[in-house]
């Protein structure tokens, strides 16, 4: 296992960015629908 590249930080960054984009868009749709 020692020769497996140590790049978990990039993986975590991609997963966090994806979650942020999707949740932000879901919240944006919710807020736009409830706009007075």
């Amino acid at each position, binding site marked *: 296992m020692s*020769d*497996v*590249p*140590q*790049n*978990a930080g*990039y*993986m975590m*960054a*991609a*997963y966090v*960015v*994806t*979650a942020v*984009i*999707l*949740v932000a*868009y*879901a919240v944006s*749709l*919710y807020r*736009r*629908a409830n706009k007075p």
Partner: protein
Amino acid sequence: MSLTQKGRWITLVALVSLAAVYVRALAFTPLERLQGPAQKIFYLHVPAAIWTEAAMILVGLAGIFYLFLKDSRLDRFAAASAEVGAVFATIVLTTGPIWGKPIWGTWWTWDARLTSTLLLFFLYVGYLLVRGAVRDPDLRARYAAVLGICGMCLVPFIHMSVYLFRTLHPQPIILKPSAPSLPSSMLVTWLFSLATFTLLYVGFVTQRYALSLQPDAHGEGSPGHV
């Protein structure tokens, strides 16, 4: 149950499913030996890319039918699909470079696949800008339909670009004529993620479509103005 509520429920289920994809991908899917943990970006990047392209195909098809039928529902659907496609394109264009840096040694290269995907993103942005800029609903729908058809024509080129040009981008390992080149454990995770992104697309488009039915949803005064 209203269309908005249906969209919200579908989105909620999709977000819970996304959390399950994260758990499965990060904890229960084996590491790829050559690329290491960064390979797991593939489980988000590829489904998002598929729906980025599929959303534009649906925008183009809706545009073609709109030009013949003049049905405003098609125009509203196209607007919803384009906005969601732009969100997925943003995911593709952020997760791709994050994968590229550890694997290629660079965030970005101007090869055919990356450049054409960036062009698709700009088409999405242009499409949404045109919709915001043109006040007349009929004119706006026609301009948007033509732009959507142009975007749809770009999609086969993006998919084939890795065959037509020498590119740094990997060849397809799932969407290809022969069997997928993935172990079954990885394939199941990827299929789970694809199903989740499909659900996200449906939930988002349903909500966005319902939004376009609301009077004054964008300060333009009447239903159908998106």
